[in-house]
């Protein structure tokens, strides 16, 4: 078995026991990347030189008998919207094509202090806006399960890389489903933590009140390990909460008997692919057999989630992306007459269509005269959705839903109709609106052998319940062991 195909918990142990050197591990992953990258296009930049320098430092520590952390020597990929000092952070945009960050994101510091090695920066929809990674300025990442199909998005590069062993794990960001949906499409484990659990410092903002960083892993055990590395209060992010540190691996318990799973049945009819529905139903039956209690629940306002999301997210984005103006850094137009001209041309030429569409939407909903009808109303509906979830979690531990209504689709099949693309986020968006945690785990394949994801959602800061249920499901199924034939 090749080293690159192992999980974090397997490879970390081998490194620690000196069965392999960190260089050997890096060689294995980079050669895997070398052989697949021209097909997959998962990465925007590789940080190879820096990775080997880090590897040698860590190896020396091991040889000196020192502890190198629980991620010691494990190569991990980072979505290219997280800042890493002296490395390009492009956000998949022409606007930031040559932007080199002067500082490290908190998650980078945390991963590195746990001993991880950063492999490179992965491809994504421009500024994390999209559900297929087709909106990247640089390249199209393919789905390793079928290279004619998208990997999902916006963290498509991260999910694709993990699914075909081009990284042991990766970080993504999830504003409306950008971790869970590509995890579902590529058959990886993807978790969007509770809003405030992981520091956003250094994550290039898309929609500040919705964005959250989370990992992609090959299995649930690795997910618990990754959470241990990145969770925790950060003085640099006042929206990050200060909770007692917990060891998530303690919740890798193969037992669903104490769990009540709520299912919002009426949310599972319209637009849901029959293959996805079938896999979902089988998964729920499996969990019932494993001892979980399954009940029907009703979420009254969840149907307004997408509308609410596309007002709040675009409003915040229109403000967050104002700083890309061609003045301080990033793309600046070649020819301009005056200041207004610099702004107009730099932004017109530097941003892609979807980004511009959302900036315009967000600018519109915040404009005087429209603010009350859109933004203010959306904030009110957001409160209703939050309360809706709170009420439901009085009667169940976890809500189960498909991660996405469909499996991965063909390139270009939804680009002409943005609304159709937005509908791919219907099951993931409510979680961000309510600030809750959600996990996607592999739960089957459709008739054309494309992966299907099962999503669990819990109340805030109950990631441990998600991990326990996901672990139980994983221990009793084989889907997570399936690898794409690429």
């Amino acid at each position: 078995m090749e080293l690159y195909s192992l999980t974090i918990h397997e490879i970390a142990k081998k490194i620690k026991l000196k069965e392999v050197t960190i260089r050997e591990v890096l060689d294995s992953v980079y050669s895997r990347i070398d052989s697949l990258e021209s097909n997959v296009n998962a990465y925007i930049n590789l940080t190879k030189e820096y990775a080997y320098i880090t590897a040698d430092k860590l190896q020396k520590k091991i040889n000196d008998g020192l502890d190198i952390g629980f991620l010691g020597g494990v190569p991990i990929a980072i979505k290219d919207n997280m800042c890493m000092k002296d490395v390009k952070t492009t956000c998949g945009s022409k606007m930031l094509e040559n932007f080199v960050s002067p500082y490290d994101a908190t998650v980078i510091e945390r991963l590195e202090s746990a001993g991880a090695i950063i492999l490179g920066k992965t491809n994504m929809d421009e500024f994390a806006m999209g559900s297929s990674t087709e909106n990247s300025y640089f390249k199209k990442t393919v789905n390793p399960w079928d290279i004619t199909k998208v990997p999902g998005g916006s963290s498509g590069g991260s999910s694709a890389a993990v699914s075909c062993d081009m990284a042991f794990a990766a970080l993504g960001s999830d504003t409306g489903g950008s971790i869970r949906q590509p995890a579902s499409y590529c058959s990886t484990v993807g978790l969007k933590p509770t809003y405030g659990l992981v520091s956003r410092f250094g994550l290039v903002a898309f929609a500040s009140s919705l964005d959250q960083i989370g990992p992609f892993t090959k299995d649930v055990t690795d997910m618990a390990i990754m959470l241990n590395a990145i969770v925790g209060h950060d003085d640099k992010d006042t929206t990050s909460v200060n909770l007692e540190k917990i060891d998530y691996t303690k919740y890798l318990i193969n037992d669903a008997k104490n769990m009540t799973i709520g299912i919002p049945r009426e949310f599972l009819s319209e637009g849901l692919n029959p293959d996805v529905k079938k896999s979902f139903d089988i998964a729920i039956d499996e969990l019932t057999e494993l001892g979980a209690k399954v009940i029907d629940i009703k979420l009254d306002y969840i149907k307004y989630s997408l509308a609410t999301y596309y007002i709040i997210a675009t409003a915040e984005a229109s403000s967050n992306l104002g700083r890309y103006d061609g003045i301080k850094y990033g793309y600046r137009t070649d020819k301009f007459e005056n200041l207004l001209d610099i702004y107009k041309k730099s932004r017109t030429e530097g941003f892609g269509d979807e980004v511009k569409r959302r900036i315009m939407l967000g600018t519109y909903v915040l404009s005087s005269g429209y603010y009350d009808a859109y933004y203010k109303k959306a904030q009110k509906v957001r409160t209703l959705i939050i309360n809706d979830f709170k009420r439901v979690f009085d009667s169940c531990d976890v809500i189960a839903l498909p991660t996405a209504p469909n499996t991965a689709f063909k390139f270009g099949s939804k680009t002409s109709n943005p609304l159709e693309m937005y509908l791919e986020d219907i099951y993931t968006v409510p979680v961000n609106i309510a600030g809750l945690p959600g996990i996607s785990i592999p739960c089957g394949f459709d008739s054309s052998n494309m992966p299907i994801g099962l999503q669990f959602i819990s109340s805030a800061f109950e990631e441990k319940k998600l991990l326990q249920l996901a672990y139980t499901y994983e221990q009793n199924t084989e889907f997570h062991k399936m690898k794409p034939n690429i």
Partner: protein
Amino acid sequence: MEDKIKEYEVVIGIEAHAELSTKTKIYCNCSTEYGADPNTHCCPICTGMPGVLPVLNEKVVEYAVKAGLATDCSIAKFSKQDRKNYFYPDLPKAYQTSQFDLPLCIGGHVDIFVNGAKKTIGITRIHIEEDAGKLIHDEFTGSTLVDMNRCAVPLIEIVSEPDMRNAAEVIEYMQTLKGVLEYLEVCDCKMQEGSLRCDVNLSVRKWGAPNFGTRTETKNLNSFKAIQKSIEFEIRRQIEELENGGIIYQETRRFDDNLGIGYAMRTKEDAHDYRYFEEPDLAPIVLSDEYVNSIKNNLPEMPNVRRARYVEQYMLSEYDATQITNSKLLANYFDKTVSLCNNPKSVTNWLMGDFSKMLNELNLEINESKIIEENLANLIKLIDTNIISSAMAKKVFIEMFETGKDAKVIVEEKGLVQLTDESAILKIVEEVVNSNDQSVSDYIAGKDKAIGFLVGQIMKASKGKANPTTVNELLLKILEAKK
């Protein structure tokens, strides 16, 4: 035209911006120090790099609450910060973090004294926000450079009610605010460095008109002179416009201090739509009663309290008391000097007279003067004990001001001790009287003016040292005897 002006009532409201004297900026740890090399007090946060997040400096809230309490505002238990979105090269995030609908302080007032009469000026609100950077236009290369040292320096904006009616009231209001902020030590109030500046909202209407006229806003005035001149300019402009059948547009204006004229920057039609919305990166500001009370209980004595004390305790006029107490430095100087010489009237006269005139000429604050409190107290004591005359004191004072020497030292060095010995003075008086027959006969003939000449001669003969009161007494006695 001057008659026409009298037909109008002027209505003015002020938005004052005060840079808070916190050590660090509002959302990062960069220094707020003024005058550093360009772009040396910056970091990824205050320069708006991708991915950064703000962390509110708690001192900013404390300072703003102090200002609110000192101006009788209610302090909001719950307030929030909002983004004000617009594009400009001195604003790296493309939004200014400010407070929109839920400011920190609401509904206060300050009392001002104009021509001895008290007037209450309402304060609508005080909110916290961040300053922008500075653009430097390089005429040599024709390029524009950005200095981001000032980006995210904390500000409070103090918004008044439209309660002022002329430039004098505005000046008094700004003096009063300046005093309050200085006493609180929340702002250094150096107007020439822009740490205290204001926007003037001004409209005119015919006396008795039910509604306010359309107002204009003149931005960024940073000297009392500019405030005064811009108000006078704008009053005249608006009235002339109306009298000529024109209309006033709601617009933002600038005032060119050098040329003494104002001009429109932009009208309401192309005004910014700032698209305010709640800053999602910052939690709401929630203050407990304990927090607000502990600040309240530790406020220093404020100018208005001190002013009342001066009037009561030292019998100062309202005007003098106001002038002295408006500046904390001046009032502290006053207190110490009075404690050393026990003559508040004389201290007041020096501070309000020659001393402030000389300081103003050199643009110095009183703490930058070479004359320390002990020196001034000693000078006053020399006068009060008749060792030197007032006239001599003025000369001594000039030397003190220039050299920083103590009054006693100067008096000794120059042998300036006053001649108070009556017999010695009498001798000089007699000599002068005897050698100036003409003046003496003029006086006897009823020409009172002649006495001035004689006094002058006597002072000259005594090298200015004779006590003037004694000279006058003795001279009159001798002259009367000759009648």
